[in-house]
C-alpha cells in the first residue's frame, strides 16, 4: 500500500514538472538569438540602401528576416536607436554606451523591413559585430 502511494506521488510530480516545463517552452521558448547565427550578408549601409531604392520587392525577398552585418558611419544615437549613414535605423538589443556618433561601425541585426514612408531600412536585435 505504501509503495503504491509513493509511485503515484512520483508519477504525479513527473507529470506536473513536464506540464510546467512544456508550458514555459510554449510561452517563452523558441526565441531567436542572432549571436549564435551565421551572418547571411555583409553589406555597407550605402550598398543596401541602393539595393532597396532600386527594387523594394526583390530586396525584401533577399533580406527580410535575415541576420546581416551592416557597416557605416553612425549619424545619430538616441538610446537604443542607432542610425547609420542617415538611412539604416538599428534598434539595439541592449543599450551599449560604447556606441557613439561619428564612429565607423559594423552592427549585426535582423532585417525588419523597409519603411517607404520615410525611406529608411529598419533592423532590430542589433549588436556590435567584430
Amino acid at each position, binding site marked *: 500500500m505504501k509503495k503504491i502511494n509513493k509511485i503515484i506521488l512520483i508519477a504525479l510530480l513527473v507529470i506536473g514538472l513536464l506540464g510546467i516545463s512544456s508550458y514555459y517552452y510554449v510561452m517563452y*521558448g*523558441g526565441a531567436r538569438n542572432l549571436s549564435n547565427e551565421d551572418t547571411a550578408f555583409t553589406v555597407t549601409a550605402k550598398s543596401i540602401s541602393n539595393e532597396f531604392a532600386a527594387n523594394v520587392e526583390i530586396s*525584401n525577398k533577399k533580406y*527580410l528576416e535575415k541576420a546581416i552585418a551592416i557597416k557605416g558611419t553612425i549619424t545619430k544615437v538616441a538610446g537604443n536607436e542607432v542610425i547609420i549613414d542617415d538611412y539604416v*535605423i538599428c*534598434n539595439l538589443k541592449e543599450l551599449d554606451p560604447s556606441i557613439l556618433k561619428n564612429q565607423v561601425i559594423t552592427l549585426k541585426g535582423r532585417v525588419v*523591413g523597409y519603411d517607404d*514612408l520615410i525611406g529608411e531600412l*529598419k533592423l*532590430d536585435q542589433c549588436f556590435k559585430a567584430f
Partner: protein
Amino acid sequence: MKTNKLIIATICLLAGNIIFSQKLMTRKGEVKFEASMAAFEEIAGTNNTASCILDESTADFAALVLIKAFKFKSPLMEEHFNENYMESSKFPKASFKGKIAGFDVKKLSVTKSTYDLEGDITIHGVTKKIKTKLNLSQNGDKIIATSVIFVKPQDYKIEIPNLVKDKIAENVKISMSFTLEAN
C-alpha cells in the same frame, strides 16, 4: 533700393514657405493590437517603431508599421502572427494615408481635441477606406496624435482557422500613439 526690397520680400516669402510647409514626424510611434477574448489567453502585440508624418500645411497624415517589429509576450505567438496570419514575409508592412478634416495648427492646445480622420488603410496587402477619430494635443513644439480603430481580420483576407475562432476577437482593437516633432 527697389531690388533690395524685392530681395527681402522674396526671402520673407521663402522663409514663410519653409515654416508653413513644416512636416512633423516620428519613427518611435506606438501601435498596439489586441485580439484577446475574455477567459482565454491574452493575444496582444506592441510595436514601438511605427513611423508617422503629419504635414501641418496640408493636414496630410500618414503612418506605417513594419509587421515583423511587433513584439509579443511569447515568441511562439509572434511566430504564428507573422507566419500564419499576417504573412509578414509577403506583406511586410501596414500603412495608412489620409487627411485630417478641419485641421488647424493654431487651434491645437494642451487639452485633447478630436478630429475626423479619413483615408486608406492597407493591412495584409488589402486596402480599405476608413473614417475614424483622431485625438490631437500640443505639448511644447510636439504634437501628440492618438487613435483607436477596430478591424475585422476577414475584411483584410486574414483567415482564422475554425479551431481557434473562439479565442480570437472578431473585432481586433488597434490603438496608436504618435509623438510628432520637427525633424
